[in-house]
């Protein structure tokens, strides 16, 4: 088989972002020159992202600005702070529209906000069965067998023996917990942080327990249930 001659991988880079707060090109360049004079070496051939968030529709002549920056050995590699409806501005300049990590994280967080409900299962969850409580806490009045899976976007309560797999905070809620009358699970997971039965056994005595997330790692507290 022939070896691939290219590979596509994601990496993150630290880029300087130039925030543009005025459409007056002359004022911008005067201020910029003053800044560059403080540390001339630092900015040589530096890639720059222009942030236009402060300017609504009142944009400066971006082509001229790009040109002026280039003369000062600064390379504009992208635009940010303009909504995607105005993508043609970036296209004209042959620059990509960029979204900072902060912006993209904020959007789904808002979507998760709606209040949670509760799903109740009044029987044993048998091997091979899978129960998912979407945007809800899950309460099982019975046991969860080996080979069964209970999943919830919220917390999971099992008022019986938990022998199967339990995954709480399936959409990434760090505050979700798993509570079982007897914890002897194959796997417990909270917001993607999981332990297999071996690790669980080390931290329990086979009694009631609460599994929660403390920072990055799971902890199991025994409960007198």
């Amino acid at each position, binding site marked *: 088989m022939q070896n691939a001659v290219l590979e596509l991988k994601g990496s993150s880079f630290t880029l300087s972002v130039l925030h543009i707060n005025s459409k007056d090109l002359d004022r911008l360049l005067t201020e910029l020159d003053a800044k560059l004079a403080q540390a001339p070496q630092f900015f040589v051939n530096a890639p720059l992202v222009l942030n236009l968030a402060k300017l609504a529709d009142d944009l400066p002549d971006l082509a001229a600005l790009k040109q002026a920056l280039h003369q000062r050995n600064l390379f504009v590699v992208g635009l940010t702070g303009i909504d995607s409806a105005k993508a043609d501005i970036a296209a004209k300049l042959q620059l990509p529209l960029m979204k900072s990590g902060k912006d993209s994280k904020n959007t789904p967080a808002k979507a998760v906000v709606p209040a949670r409900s509760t799903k109740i299962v009044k*029987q*044993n*969850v*048998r*091997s*091979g*069965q899978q129960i998912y409580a979407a945007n809800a806490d899950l309460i099982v009045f*019975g*046991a969860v*067998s*080996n*080979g*069964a899976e209970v999943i919830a976007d919220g917390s999971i309560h099992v008022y019986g*023996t938990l*022998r199967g797999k339990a995954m709480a905070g399936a959409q990434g809620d760090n505050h979700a917990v798993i509570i079982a009358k007897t914890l002897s699970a194959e796997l417990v997971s909270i917001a993607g942080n999981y332990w297999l039965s071996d690790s669980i056994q080390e931290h329990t005595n086979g009694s009631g327990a609460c599994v929660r997330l403390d920072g990055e790692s799971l902890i199991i507290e025994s409960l007198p249930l």
Partner: protein
Amino acid sequence: MAQIIVVTSGKGGVGKTTSSAAIATGLALKGHKTVVIDFDIGLRNLDLIMGCERRVVYDFVNVINGEANLNQALIKDKRCDKLFVLPASQTRDKDALTKEGVGKVLEDLSKDFDYILCDSPAGIETGAMMALYFADTAIVTTNPEVSSVRDSDRILGMLQSRSRRAEQSLEPVKEYLLLTRYAPTRVKTGEMLSVEDVQEILAIPLLGVIPESQSVLKASNSGVPVIVDQQSDAGQAYADAVARLLGEDVPLRFVAEEKKGLLKRIFGS
């Protein structure tokens, strides 16, 4: 209306057919008109255990396809005139069973019989699903070891979600645990799960515990259901299970280690 009982397990080789034959015979001997149906299409065994393999002319699939009527296919047991066997086809496969076909046959049988026993094949595919779909009662045959217990658990999940009673939101299928091939000595040494262990995991009422016994193999080979041999421990245990199925309160036997007599202790068993 007949009561439809499925004998099922998920796992193979745990004693479904042996148990079907024994329980069907037990019900018939108690005076209930009973038919036992072999759902293991392609791997016909029930007729051997019942000792009627030489009398099979038409089978279950022939009846479903309308190639024979029920009276032609039903085989009357030679020991008990209340007992009938509907054998499986050996030349077909499980796809020959359709929900409509099976439903029609069971409906016709319901008019004449008190109990219909469905001997399920192993697995969770078409054959097993057809056997359990119409059930009113399920006897989950389980050996005291982890893989069998887990498969039984899976089947219990299927009964709760895939049976006719579940689909039509009727009263759920009555589930009973039948623990077979139980050896108290090996339970004591920790080689085998105990009755309590299995019951704790499966959490369904116990119908009976059948001890591991030489008499079962002997009975199978001679084509006589083991329940007929009332001298044997397994035969007696099946009789107890049948009594419990009929609502009698019978104490559990053969679950404790047999006390050996002085001679046995000296000379071994």
